[in-house]
């Protein structure tokens, strides 16, 4: 912990000193040259230099935090944990579902996999954006997804694929106007139909997988976990996208690390895994003739 605190202080000191130097430079420019028109530009340039030179220090601190706090907490809850913060979920994994728009800018990090109650899972932070430039040269960025993507081995074998998408999750993909292979399905639960949209290639699979218990569980999970939810059931896997705009497992820079509080924060961040396995009873494999081991590797 002392080492972690040293790294944090080194980064904070770098930033504070850098900021002081930046202010001094700006003041000197103003006093000596009265160059008011360049003050803002000078401030930005100096501050960027401070940020860039501090990048390696931040990375060292963040890496140490992920090794010491995040990995340890994961190991306390899960088995077979592999955590590679530099790797991410390959975009091809999401692309293969063909149920999420991929935009033209994809990034992913903090990849990890493991088992909870013998259910294999993989997760990663994912960011998907569409960057466009209009005729006047203005760049527009539309965020399709920013949050965590999870993949679980699902305990039922089913035909086709389908998605359960919260109504305010706007960028899932579910066929076009003339694509008759995917149809909208409504279940018998009126509340569920109000909260979620279901698109499927096989309506029977929807009713087979979404039993009344699963429907209730999804509603419960949706209430408990902040963010917009997208569930994709495909190839006997369950993909879960939680669009919450957050980047998991990042340490606090300005506060001294409190081990218990930090671990509690990590536990909260990995809570979706325990919630999905427990609520959807993914560990109950009476219907699965063979366990599917198809967890994608990070890249």
């Amino acid at each position, binding site marked *: 912990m002392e080492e972690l605190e040293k790294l944090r202080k080194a980064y904070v000191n770098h930033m504070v000193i850098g900021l002081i130097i930046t202010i001094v430079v700006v003041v000197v420019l103003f006093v000596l040259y009265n160059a008011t028109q360049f003050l803002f530009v000078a401030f930005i340039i100096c501050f960027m230099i401070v940020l860039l030179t501090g990048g390696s220090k931040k990375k060292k601190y963040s890496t140490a935090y992920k090794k010491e706090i995040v990995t340890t907490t994961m190991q306390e809850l899960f088995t077979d944990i592999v955590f590679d913060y530099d790797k991410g979920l390959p975009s091809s994994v999401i692309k293969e579902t063909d149920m999420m728009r991929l935009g033209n800018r994809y990034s992913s990090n903090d990849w990890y996999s493991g088992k909870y109650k013998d259910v294999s899972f993989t997760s990663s932070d994912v960011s998907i954006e569409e960057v466009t430039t209009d005729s006047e040269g203005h760049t527009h960025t539309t965020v399709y997804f920013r949050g965590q993507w999870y993949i679980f081995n699902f305990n039922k074998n089913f035909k086709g694929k389908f998605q359960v998408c919260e109504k305010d999750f706007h960028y899932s993909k579910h066929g076009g106007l003339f694509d008759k292979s995917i149809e909208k399905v409504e*279940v018998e639960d009126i509340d569920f139909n109000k909260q979620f949209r279901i698109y499927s290639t096989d309506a029977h699979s929807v009713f087979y997988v979404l039993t009344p218990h699963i429907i209730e569980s999804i509603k419960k999970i949706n209430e408990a976990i902040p963010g917009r939810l997208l569930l994709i059931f495909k190839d006997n896997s369950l993909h879960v996208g939680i669009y919450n705009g957050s980047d998991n497992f990042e340490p606090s820079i300005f506060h001294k690390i409190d081990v218990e509080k930090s671990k509690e924060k990590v536990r909260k961040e990995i809570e979706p895994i325990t919630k999905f396995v427990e609520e959807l009873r993914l560990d109950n494999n*009476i219907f699965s003739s063979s366990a599917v081991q198809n967890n994608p590797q990070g890249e």
Partner: protein
Amino acid sequence: MNSLIIVLVVIVAILFIPVIVVINKFNRMLVKIEEADSDIDVALIKRHDTLTKMLDVVKGYAKHEKDTLIEIVNVRKGMSAKEKNDAIKSLDESTEKIRLLAEAYPELRSSENYNTLQKSIADTEEHLQAARRMYNANVSAFNQYLVSFPASIIGSMKGLSKKEFLEASEEQKEDVKMDL
């Protein structure tokens, strides 16, 4: 004169386009109900076959028991909703009888064959429930649409009437549980 014809064509189109839309919607709904109905047939036949296999396995262990005279009702495609309800009820009873009979034979309950069939029965039961729920969801949507205006007028002109639901017992409303 020309403008009168155009006005008439527009009026006819305004009147007929919604009629065509409603008729198409009814047709799509009926196709969905038929598909769900056919899914129930498939699930019922699968369940019947699995139960028959299960009964054969149990009989192998309980040759001298008179209770092995369990009748498994025959199922066929195209049964009415009432016939399906009766068949489901009868298959439920047979499942319970077979399970009770098997309880007297610990070696049977621990056999791999029996456990595989138990899993298979649980799975066919899940499929049957899924098919029943899908059928009822489609019937519910159809019945609601049939009483809404103006679909109710077109529905009665086409001679459509409300469809029967498939009932579910209290046990069936719960998720399948297994005691292996």
